[in-house]
């Protein structure tokens, strides 16, 4: 019988209409002493306003450098079952599609080897198995791989790529996010499992500029779908929206960042100057039955997003304005560029320097030169506004 903890503070969080994580821990605690001790330690944290985990140590499965986060309680005597409480990151399938069978297999493995608690999913995208001991790592790994699953990334490696639902269920997907996410994951298994970079290296794939996987904010390489040709307009549907009361003028036209739409209120007709359109998606979002992205579709590749530590947060910035990433040749070229960038970053990057910080430190121009990409104005919001140019060539006159 597991020890019974009084958890008046946590019990408060069982109340209220939103589903309760405390209920989940208690549910798991019925079967797992680990989860039960977690409950105890967490209640103590709630009382003391202080976490009780020690700085992680390096643990893992044989031959892999990533996928496991070591974790130890700083009150191991009091909560012995969580004295080791490592998490295992399990690489999710593209788009987080599952079958009930697949989920049950996973649950069974985790029931056998761990706390029975998970995150579905971690914020990088993995399934997170929350809490096990060092001696269970190899067994759980064995069971997982035998069932067809593998670990995700952690440490200074390629991290588990993730993607939006894309062509699986979205009319706006401009390329096959699910497939390309899978392709990159499979291609870089070694990079994903064996940290060899200066720091983490994250990929996210969004099918259109709505960016439902937050790639521009959270991935070193952000792949965002877009299109080249004209927005497809179904004039009848425009009229229907107008008739149904949509304020096309104020809600659509006035919100167009490119100021490239005109609306004829009498005729209920919309016209778009597509050469100025920024592919922001707004008008399409508001009138999905009337407007659709063009048919010449592909992706914009951006680079460098990260959280604030150390130099301040970054959003990714444009590297390739348009790539027909579904095309195998262009995809190969993209992979070549990835590898080229990895090389340059590995060679010149400092320890714990994300690629975005690296580019800022060495200068975008120098970075482009090193990876063999031509500078183009699409890469900047605006050209420099300071006159501090490092001209590389100057003429030497005779008398020097």
């Amino acid at each position, binding site marked *: 019988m597991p020890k019974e903890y009084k958890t008046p503070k946590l019990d408060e969080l069982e109340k209220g209409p939103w589903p309760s994580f405390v209920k989940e821990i208690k549910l798991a605690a019925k079967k797992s002493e680990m989860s039960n001790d977690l409950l105890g330690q967490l209640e103590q944290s709630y009382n003391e306003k202080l976490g009780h985990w020690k700085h992680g140590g390096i643990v893992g499965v044989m031959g892999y450098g990533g996928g496991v986060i070591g974790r130890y309680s700083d009150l191991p005597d009091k909560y012995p079952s969580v004295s080791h409480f490592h998490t295992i990151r399990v690489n999710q399938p593209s788009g987080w599609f*599952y079958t009930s069978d697949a989920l049950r297999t996973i649950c069974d493995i985790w029931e056998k080897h761990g706390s029975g608690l998970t995150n579905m999913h971690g914020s990088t995208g993995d399934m997170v198995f929350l809490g096990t001991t060092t001696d269970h790592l190899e067994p759980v790994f064995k069971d997982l791989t035998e069932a067809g699953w593998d670990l995700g990334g952690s440490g200074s490696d390629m991290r588990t790529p993730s993607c939006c639902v894309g062509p699986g269920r979205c009319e706006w997907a401009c390329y096959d996010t699910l497939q390309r996410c899978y392709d990159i994951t499979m291609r870089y298994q070694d990079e994903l499992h064996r940290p060899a970079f200066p720091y983490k290296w994250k990929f996210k794939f969004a099918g259109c500029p709505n960016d439902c996987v937050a790639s521009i904010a959270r991935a070193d390489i952000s792949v965002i779908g877009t299109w080249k040709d004209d927005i497809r307009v179904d004039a009848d549907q425009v009229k229907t929206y107008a008739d149904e009361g949509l304020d096309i003028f104020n809600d659509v036209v006035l919100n167009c960042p490119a100021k490239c739409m005109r609306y004829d209120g009498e005729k209920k007709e919309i016209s778009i100057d597509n050469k100025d359109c920024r592919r922001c998606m707004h008008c399409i979002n508001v009138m999905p039955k009337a407007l659709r992205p063009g048919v010449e579709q592909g992706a914009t590749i951006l680079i460098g997003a990260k959280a604030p530590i150390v130099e301040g947060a970054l959003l990714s910035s444009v590297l390739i304005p348009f790539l027909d990433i579904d095309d195998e040749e262009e995809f190969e070229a993209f992979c070549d560029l990835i590898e080229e960038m990895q090389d340059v970053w590995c060679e010149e990057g400092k320890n714990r320097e994300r690629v975005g910080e690296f580019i800022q430190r060495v200068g975008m121009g120098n970075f482009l030169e090193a990876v063999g990409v031509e500078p183009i104005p699409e890469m900047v919001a605006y050209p420099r506004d300071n006159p501090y140019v490092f001209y590389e060539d100057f003429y030497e006159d005779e008398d020097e």
Partner: protein
Amino acid sequence: MADAAPQRITDIGPPDFQQFLPPVVKANYGKWKYHEIVEPGVMVHVAESGDELYTIRAGSPRLLAIDTIRFYADLADKYCDGHLRFTSRHNVEFLTTKKENVAKIRAEIEANGNPVGGMGRSITSIVHTQGWVHCHSAATDASGVVKAVMDEVIDYFKEEKLPAKCRIALACCLNMCGAVHCSDIAILGIHRKPPRIDHKNLDKICEIPNLSASCPTAAIRPATVEGMPSVEVIEEQCMYCANCFTVCPAMPIADPENDGVSIWVGGKVSNARSEPQFSKLAIPFIPNNPPRWPEVTEAIVKIIEVWAANARPYERMGEWIERVGWPRFFKLTGIPFEKEHIDDFKHAGLSFKRSAHLTHEA
């Protein structure tokens, strides 16, 4: 899938997603035509073929016991031919071609305590991190704050009654695992005291040059303390980012009285209308007050209500504030503007108001 291999299997990657796609998805892959939200939390996607796919989205605590996952799986078997997915914000989605199943799924999942909603102009689940449940670095809990906030704003999850989407995120320390920096509302755990130094052990477990280099403000200097090689922290130069602690366990920084939560607003990720933006500081500090962080939930509810009452349709939090100006935001929410709000980090000067574009009250 399972296949008893004699030798150790590695580097197989995740299963191919194809095997998990519902048949209707396979049949209409990349051929969807449009979608419609038919009721809060339920949408239908219509394919060029005319096929329809209904999605029922339900809120989930993310931290799930395996028995709950099994419950989801059972529900999928019952109504969705065994198909379901999770979203990028940790909700669970049931996928069915049968319109008549929608109400049934809703009833069963709601009965389990999972509200249906989070679509369109709503608040969806809060992206968050580990907190005291699993991380050594946390300045606040994650799941607890999230639960407390969602309890208060759940009506905005269940109904579409906001001007636009409102994305809330939480990260329990400046590492910002939730990547909260681009959220309509971000909740960020924050320390407010310089690290303590475990001089006895520091040299044994950490590399002093790496440690010094880790500090963004160069507040850490090598020093000999009681004969031992260690470091000193120039306290006035420390802004409590805890990067030193990440690099070196002998620099603990958590402190019950000084740890807490800050609130940030106006960020976004999508390219819709305006470009993606960072969230900006709204409330510099609220002490941790578990289990329900009432000051935090109150502030968030207030911010949402003010935005909802004043923004135009389709205006995300930051777009509204951008249009009416930050002075209006502070005035309407009643949040005091303080020295801490004014940036003094690297790009500080760029955040100053360098124009005469101001609103004035007569």
